[in-house]
């Protein structure tokens, strides 16, 4: 099978996966207990009014009609209107989507830069005491759920040292920058970004770190390294120029998958750091029975995961000529 055929087939699979994912989403949320008016009963709404709202939201329609509606909406690029905000889900999510991408994207990049460099170093130090310490540290980071690392960095850098703000994405009262780039490149934004990124980085760097070390070990065993050594190249040059370059393949493909996983991690990090992102929105939407919003957020996160998996597959066959297109 040629590369092109493989890609076409992979795209076809992508479509099927997407359809199954979307349908699952619909089934899940329609089976949800309660309705969006539940949260407000104590605020003084009577039964008649609740039924009015439910009818207004189309929730009294038969399920198959709701499904058809929903599919139609998605195909036309709309997620529907939020039960809670009365605003199109997309309008709300598009801002939060970028907030989350900047947060988790920065975290994954940091995790990879630190993880890959440190992992290569550990591979180089194989058998030494330092390697052992490094591995234990890596496993420790990976064994700490994100909320736990968040609590620790928060305690140290916000409460104890007082260097960084304890939450939020911008200083309160700051004028909202009109342009996209100005919003995400301001020093104020970066200042608020540091702590949550740090917390996420600690958790996510363990995977590339350990993976890089393992592949480094394999590569270092290979013959050509010995040849380079014989050629008189310095150890560091061999490490970063040759061995590392050769072991980057599995690490890169794994990056795509870790990015997908990080989407899920945003639920916790954003809650602890009061970050106005998609993950926190999803948790809130569930608590408010706001199905369209929760579905929209879930859909976007799932999309990132699906697309990242797809990219990982393509990258893998592209980078590694040995792979059969199967």
């Amino acid at each position: 099978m040629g590369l092109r055929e493989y890609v076409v087939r992979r795209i076809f699979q992508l479509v099927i996966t997407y359809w199954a994912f979307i349908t699952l989403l619909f089934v899940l949320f329609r089976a949800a207990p309660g309705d969006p008016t539940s949260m407000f009963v104590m605020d003084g709404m009577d039964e008649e009014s609740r039924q009015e709202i439910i009818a207004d939201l189309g929730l009294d329609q038969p399920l198959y009609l709701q499904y058809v509606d929903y599919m139609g909406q998605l195909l036309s690029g709309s997620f529907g209107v939020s039960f809670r905000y009365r605003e199109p889900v997309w309008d709300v999510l598009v801002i939060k989507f970028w907030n989350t991408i900047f947060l988790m994207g920065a975290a994954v990049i940091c995790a990879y830069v630190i993880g890959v460099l440190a992992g290569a170093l550990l591979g180089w130090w194989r058998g030494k005491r330092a390697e052992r310490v490094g591995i234990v540290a890596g496993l420790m980071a990976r064994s700490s759920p994100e909320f736990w690392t968040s609590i620790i960095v928060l305690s140290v850098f916000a409460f104890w040292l007082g260097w960084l703000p304890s939450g939020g994405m911008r200083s309160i009262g700051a004028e909202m920058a009109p342009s996209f780039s100005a919003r995400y490149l301001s020093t104020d934004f970066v200042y608020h970004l540091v702590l949550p990124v740090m917390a996420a980085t600690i958790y996510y760097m363990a995977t590339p770190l350990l993976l890089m070390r393992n592949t480094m070990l394999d590569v270092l065993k290979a013959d050509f390294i010995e040849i380079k050594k014989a050629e008189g190249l310095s150890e560091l040059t061999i490490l970063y120029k040759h061995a590392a370059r050769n072991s980057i393949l599995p690490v890169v493909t794994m990056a795509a998958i870790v990015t997908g996983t990080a989407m899920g991690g945003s639920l916790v990090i954003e809650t602890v750091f009061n970050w106005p992102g998609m993950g926190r929105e999803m948790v809130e939407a569930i608590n408010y029975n706001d199905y369209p919003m929760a579905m929209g957020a879930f859909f976007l996160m799932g999309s990132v995961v699906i697309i990242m998996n797809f990219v990982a597959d393509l990258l893998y066959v592209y980078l590694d000529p040995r792979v059969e297109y199967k």
Partner: protein
Amino acid sequence: MSDESVKRRDVMKGVATVAAVAPVATAGCLGDDDTGVDGEPVEEIELIVTTADYDPVRYEFGQLIADNWRELGFDVDVNPTAWNTIVDTAMDQQDFDAFTLNWGGRAERIDPDIFCYDLHHSSQTELGARNQVNFENEEYDEAAEAQRRLYDDEERREQVYRCQEIFAEEQPRTPIANQEQIMPYLADAFDEVVTMMGEGLMSFWTAVDSEPAGGNSELRLGYPSEVNNLNPADGQATHDQQTMRLIYDRLMRINTDGVAEEWLAESVEEVDDTTIEVTIRDGQSWHDGEELTVEDVKFSFEYLGEHSPVLDAATDPVEDIEIVGDRTLRFDLDEPFAPFLAVSLGQVFIIPEHIWAEIPDGMDDVNSPLDFDNPEPVGSGPFQFVDWQRDEQMVLEANEDHFNTPNVETMIKVPGADMSTLVRLLEDEEINMIGWVPGPDTVNRLEEDVDHVENSSIEDHGWYHINYQLERPPFDDKDVRHALAHAIPKQDIVDVVMDGMGTVTHSQIAEVNEFWHNPDVMEFGDDIDRARDVLEEAGYQWDDDGRIHYPAE
């Protein structure tokens, strides 16, 4: 409701029934044994409480109550349940034995009508209505109806007193405590902070009348959740209403004493007991510069009455509205309705006809007024809308043309993922006030260790209580309800669970609501021996295992 949703409910109910029946069946078997008593054992009681994270107070006092009831020989199963499920099964379907609840104190609930009539009149017992306990008492109904008809406060109070007496005597719900609303703010940021019963620092008057200290011109108010939307026809959540009332005026406002006073209305006159004549202030204008007219007022009542599910009850008593002068209009009521000024005129937002007449017909993609997200609300209130970044901040600006211009220039509303992030923001001086009650430990810590934070404190007229399903045994027996109520450790709940930040209560109208509160009703609680006596006198017996049985037939 469609077939599908009915089916879903039925399925869920089926599951619940199976779960509930199983232990009862076992209990029935026990009764056949030779236990030395004649009557059947009393069924297991399922006590539904909120989860600890939704409300630690309700969760904790549920456990304490269950302990004491078990000591009385009842078999109690405490079931912590997610809030949306409680709403669905207990409040909506009335499918419960007993559950804990808290009616929040809002400005409109200072008027005794909701706590007297809506919650306990026998006409409110159908599924979904608010008399979930199925309390039906003719004498009570008479008093609850009478208080609605009497415009004279003293006469009306007699009937409200009567309601409280019968309620206490019957104990369809047992009131437990009123919370003390302690909300923190930055001491340096304000010279004077206004607070209000039931609302604390979230009150309208806090935003409008608090006096900022020199050098500060902003009120930065944190609240542990975000506003849902600013559509005056929607406004399902209390928080939405609390925000919109800053932007939109009302004819009357409930003042800090809990009395409805003229606001956008200049004068209100009772022509007779079904006719109210209102004259609005002269020279008022909308935030977009248009003049506010008496037609806008008429339009608001008609439009919101037709389209708003939430304000429906407030506009219900109105039969007809007639414009009788440049600034005067006349409300004709179906029947005399004493709470009209507070509940109706004090709740309905005045919205601009020149904008809302177009909605939904003049808009694409908007099918009903409820679908409209009202991105730039135009009102006539003391604050005008500037900008809203959801989950970050909402900026409001003082309306300099208003007859009651706020003392601050800007108000920034800041939502938090939870209280803990808000307290952090307050300590870091990013915000200067929080409109919600932190846990007792945080309050103590702020009081003792954090010098720049001050706590404002006021009693809430909302009440923590426990509900009994009067249609189910053993709660259909008034003696059992009395005994259960006696066994509730009210003082311990206030001391331990609320860390002293509350007051024990015996009535549905709180003590802090001085004018309407009846101090002389039957009192229950903190007396487990008395509870045992009551049961014994009623003929209940205990078997060798200490389990309680019904009186012999």
